[in-house]
């Protein structure tokens, strides 16, 4: 049996993001599948919800987000929002230092899972969503979906209802981060064009490996 591969790991609710320290490759695998193959890996440092033991040095998700975004964005001041499967968190950088942060923790309103489930369930291409759909207030994921299906039952198209729902989630995200002119986005929802275009400000996706970049920086500088 070959020696376990040394990796850095961001193990979220839905997916594990992996950086292989031997060959510098990256991979994304479903978290449930990754957890079954734990013995194949030598985890040097980790972040994320889904592993609490045997996971090398643990780094707080917001710390990894801050470090990762600082290594990917050159601006002195910026805000980065991480939209994960389960919750949403952000850090605000001023003069290249963390000046603010928050984490939507209690309610599923923002959860990437809901957005992913809905877009898959309704099987709608992002290009087909209307750009002028009114925003649905999304108090939480379930109440938001109730309003969405209410709209459909009153005769609105599925596309319009979904666009309104995504707007509602994006609006909540913008409220959480304090409505900066430009917003950097991290996490699985970066790949969801419909979601990215639901924001009302310049929104720049950084991809799914921002926390991994943070871990790489922290690991290479041995600041853990």
């Amino acid at each position, binding site marked *: 049996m070959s020696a376990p591969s040394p990796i850095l790991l961001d193990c979220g609710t839905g997916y594990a993001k992996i950086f292989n320290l031997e060959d510098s490759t990256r991979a994304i695998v479903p978290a449930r599948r990754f957890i079954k193959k734990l013995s194949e890996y030598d985890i040097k440092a980790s972040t994320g919800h889904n592993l609490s033991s045997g996971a090398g040095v643990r780094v*707080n998700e917001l710390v990894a987000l*801050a470090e990762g975004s600082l290594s990917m964005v050159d601006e002195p001041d910026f805000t980065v929002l991480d939209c994960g499967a389960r919750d949403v*968190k952000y850090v605000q950088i001023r003069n290249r230092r963390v000046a*603010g*942060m*928050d984490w939507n923790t209690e309610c599923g309103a923002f959860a990437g899972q809901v957005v992913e489930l809905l877009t898959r369930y309704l099987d709608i291409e992002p290009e087909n969503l209307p750009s002028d759909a009114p925003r649905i207030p999304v108090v939480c994921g379930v109440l938001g979906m109730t309003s969405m299906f209410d709209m459909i039952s009153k005769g609105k198209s599925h596309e319009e209802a979904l666009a309104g729902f995504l707007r509602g989630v994006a609006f909540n995200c913008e409220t959480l981060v304090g409505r900066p002119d430009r917003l950097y986005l991290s996490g699985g929802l970066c790949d969801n064009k419909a979601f990215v275009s639901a924001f009302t400000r310049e929104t720049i996706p950084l991809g799914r490996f921002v926390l991994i970049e943070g871990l790489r920086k922290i690991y290479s500088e041995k600041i853990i």
Partner: protein
Amino acid sequence: MQERVENGALIFDLDEPLAGRPVKDIYLPNAYCSILKRVVSNIFSLREDGGLDLVIATVGKCKCDGMRNIASWLERTTDIPILKVENDNAKGAGFPISRSGLPLLKKMELIVNSVFAPLPDGLTLEECAPKCGFWGVPPYDFGILELFPDETHIFGWTRCMENKTPADIEMECEVASGVPTVFFTQSFCQKSAFAYNLAREHGGLYVEVDKMMSHSTRAKIEAFLEFNLGWRGKR
């Protein structure tokens, strides 16, 4: 009441967990304060055993509208004897526990227990400079308090409680300026309006928890303490 106590009656703090009496979530709407769910569950549980003579319900500005509404509901629809009381005492007794360097969990236990019992003999309370602040009511899940350094001062309603002035809104809104503070509220509590806006005003962290703290809530508080104090917890 004094007479009842002298005759052997026991007093329970219904806000607190009672041994062997798990909270039954069946008396109030789902989206409701978990402390009040526990209060009501404790009331019915004690009554089932025939061990309940009187409920003393604080219903004034010293508590919240939730308890006033619950007390009225119980009065109207059950035979549970309810005594509605208001505590508008304005004479402060001091708050040395809130400003001491004891572990935050210990401070909270002492304050909560001081409602019915005097402070333990020989307890010395030395004031420390605050590194951090915890604002709010006593949480349902005391585990949250273990995340903080010992030099965390208590603010908000819990400090008012120690001061024996639970209706003192001015004091409830006081925090130490420049000290990183976590503004804690139970989910569905009316005081969340305070917590939310005080956190914005003072650049603190708003934290809302329903029952037990989630992984995300824990990580959020840990990150706040790490960014502000370089504190990575008691390891």
